[in-house]
């Protein structure tokens, strides 16, 4: 089974491809598009529940899900800028992987009083990943950006696991 990527979320939202989107603007845009395209508000025009209307509404919801999350947004952007870059750069530095494994263990065994400090550290790591990624994209180094994105996945996952714990 192979996942077929959803349509370009930036195009669905009519936005220029960019890593940096203003959260509030994005949300407003989502609500506006939903009003324009949601099947509920188009029933009266006898469009009914036809697949095309549903599909368009689904595209908007699915694009919103990607764009609102900085990591998923970055992944979609990279895939659009350089298809295959993510697949090509899957192999990560063994040293990094060892660190990531250690981090996952640290999260799994974190005591309640260590959680806030660990959260700050992980949030910092995710933020710094995004900074690095931004710089790499700015100088057009998609391969380095792809590796950063893959690495960032581990930080993000650790943060999610930490949140699920508490």
């Amino acid at each position, binding site marked *: 089974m192979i996942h077929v990527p959803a349509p370009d979320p930036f195009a669905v939202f009519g936005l220029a491809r960019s890593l940096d989107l203003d959260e509030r603007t994005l949300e407003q845009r989502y*609500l506006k598009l939903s009003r324009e395209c949601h099947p509920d508000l188009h*029933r009266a025009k006898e469009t009914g529940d036809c697949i095309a209307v549903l*599909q368009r509404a689904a595209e908007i919801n*699915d694009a919103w899900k990607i764009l609102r999350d900085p990591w998923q947004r970055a992944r979609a952007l990279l895939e659009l800028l350089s298809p295959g870059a993510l697949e090509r750069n899957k192999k990560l530095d063994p040293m990094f992987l060892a660190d990531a494994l250690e981090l996952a263990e640290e999260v799994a065994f974190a005591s309640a009083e260590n959680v806030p400090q660990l959260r700050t550290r992980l949030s910092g790591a995710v933020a710094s990943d995004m900074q690095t990624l931004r710089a790499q994209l700015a100088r057009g180094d998609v391969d380095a950006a792809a590796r950063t994105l893959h690495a960032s996945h581990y930080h993000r996952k650790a943060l999610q696991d930490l949140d699920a714990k508490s």
Partner: protein
Amino acid sequence: MSSEAATPTSPRLVVGIDLGTTNSLAAIRAGKGARVLRDADGEPLIPSVVCFHPDGRTLVGREAKAERLAHPDRTVFSIKRLIGRSVHELGDEPKRLPYPIVAGERDLPRVRVGERQWSPEAISALILQRVKQTAEQALGQPVQHAVVTVPAWFDDAQRQATKDAAALAGLDCLRILNEPTAAALAYGIDGSKDGTALVYDLGGGTFDVSILRIDDGVFRVLSTAGDTHLGGDDFDELLGQRILAALPRVAGKVGASEDPYVLQAVRKAAESLKIKLSSAERADLQLDLGARGTVTLTVTRAEFEAAIAPLVQRTLDCVQRAVKDAGLRLEQIDDVVLVGGSTRVPMVRARLRGLLGKEPHTGVDPDLAVALGASIQADVLAGNDRSLLLLDVIPLSLGIETLGGAVQKLILRNSTIPTSVTEEFSTGVDNQTAVDLNVFQGERELAKDCRRLGHFKLRGIPPLPAGLPRIAVTFLVDADGVLRVTAREQRTGVEASIQIVPSFGLTRDEVRRMMLDSIENAQADYVAREAIDVRNKAEAMVRGTQKALAMAELPPDQTYAVQKAVKALGKLLAANADAAALKQGCDDLTKVTATIADDVISAAVAKALREEQQGS
């Protein structure tokens, strides 16, 4: 806020219907507000009860409820607890009902009345018909279109069954709407008050909690959680057990708990005890069961609360999970809304207040809020109101079974609907023309722990060597939360036909436990799942590489190197090696093939296609 003048191309009258476990009713949008539709006696609530009287009449509503004690085995109530489920899933629930349940086709429950068997859909349809008639009398005109509400936690099968019931009642169901979402609409009709609301909906048989963000007329559900098997009926059941225990034992007679009359009388007495205990500190019961003897019992509120405490705690666990899933903290909830008759129980209110630190809103009658909200959404769908928009979510993840019994999740729970995902599938055997897909709903990693919604058969795949067809299957969840599947073969553009066989294979208990279990068992699931994935991957690699080798013309030294690595991996598979060893074997094979893979595959594919064309 913008509100266009309503000039619908085809003005339609659309009512909102709350099809409840205990009571049902309809409402209609009226000006800025909404009003419930009452019968000739001014009553809005229609008991969700149907009585098949021995004299041949079919009674619905209050008349049917009045026959509960006279004809306990012919008076059907709480049918909502059975809809869209299988007999197997119901477990021992039918034993506690005074009317007989038998297994019909595909193990679906049927209510047996004399010679006839009734499906839950058909009984729900009788209730909906009565609601429709009441609405028509109140409005003085025919009603054909409706929005019908369901618990947010209802899955695909239960939603579909409810739609079927509406169709059987002669209603065009324009939307299946989630009850807590409807209630939120009733509380913030024009959506002018922005903020975050938590709707706590404890009805007769189901519990839902939804978190909504209201933003300039857009009601966006952020998360939902619940239990389709927890409600006021369960409170009654606990009180009923106390009454049964106090019943004098009569030697040599059939157990009291198997006598339909006693069951129904006890149920009725328990309900009245519960209602008394909502306003009084203690309640007395004098129950005369004729030959069965008399029960005299006093229950204090403290005793009642101790008995229901674990159930109330379960609802609070759901509340916390929903808040977390919404990405919020408890203190970020601006408003708390109570819906459902069971929220009248003082302990429920007190515990919720304790958890959220806020006084819940009770401005709208909890029995009417859902229908009122449904009528507002009905007005939107009729094209009369374009200022409001509802964005709801799917309550449980949807996925398909992969080799070895793992579930690959395609659509995650709490995704805004409509939503869709497209995956590409291929064949495993040469000239295979059909592919089977099993669709599951639930949060667990393995298929056996999720609920199998149905079985999809893709047909009409062009005969090609294994792995060559590319069938794109689109899973679309519509605005009712119901799944639609379409498929297309990519090379030929042929629309594959899909045959859907709905099934309800697993116990409902598993669905109920799924969320909690998925947290508790996440680790064990992950390990089991990973082992299956690695094995599948290794097997596919061995097959694929052998095939490619046979088709591609490689220099002998390369062929030898690849064959060596394939053999090594094959040996590991035959020896049932663990996941780590298999992973290593896969990596070794990849290393060998990586440099030549592109050439081999493109050559192999080209050759296979050439042979295919020559053959035909």
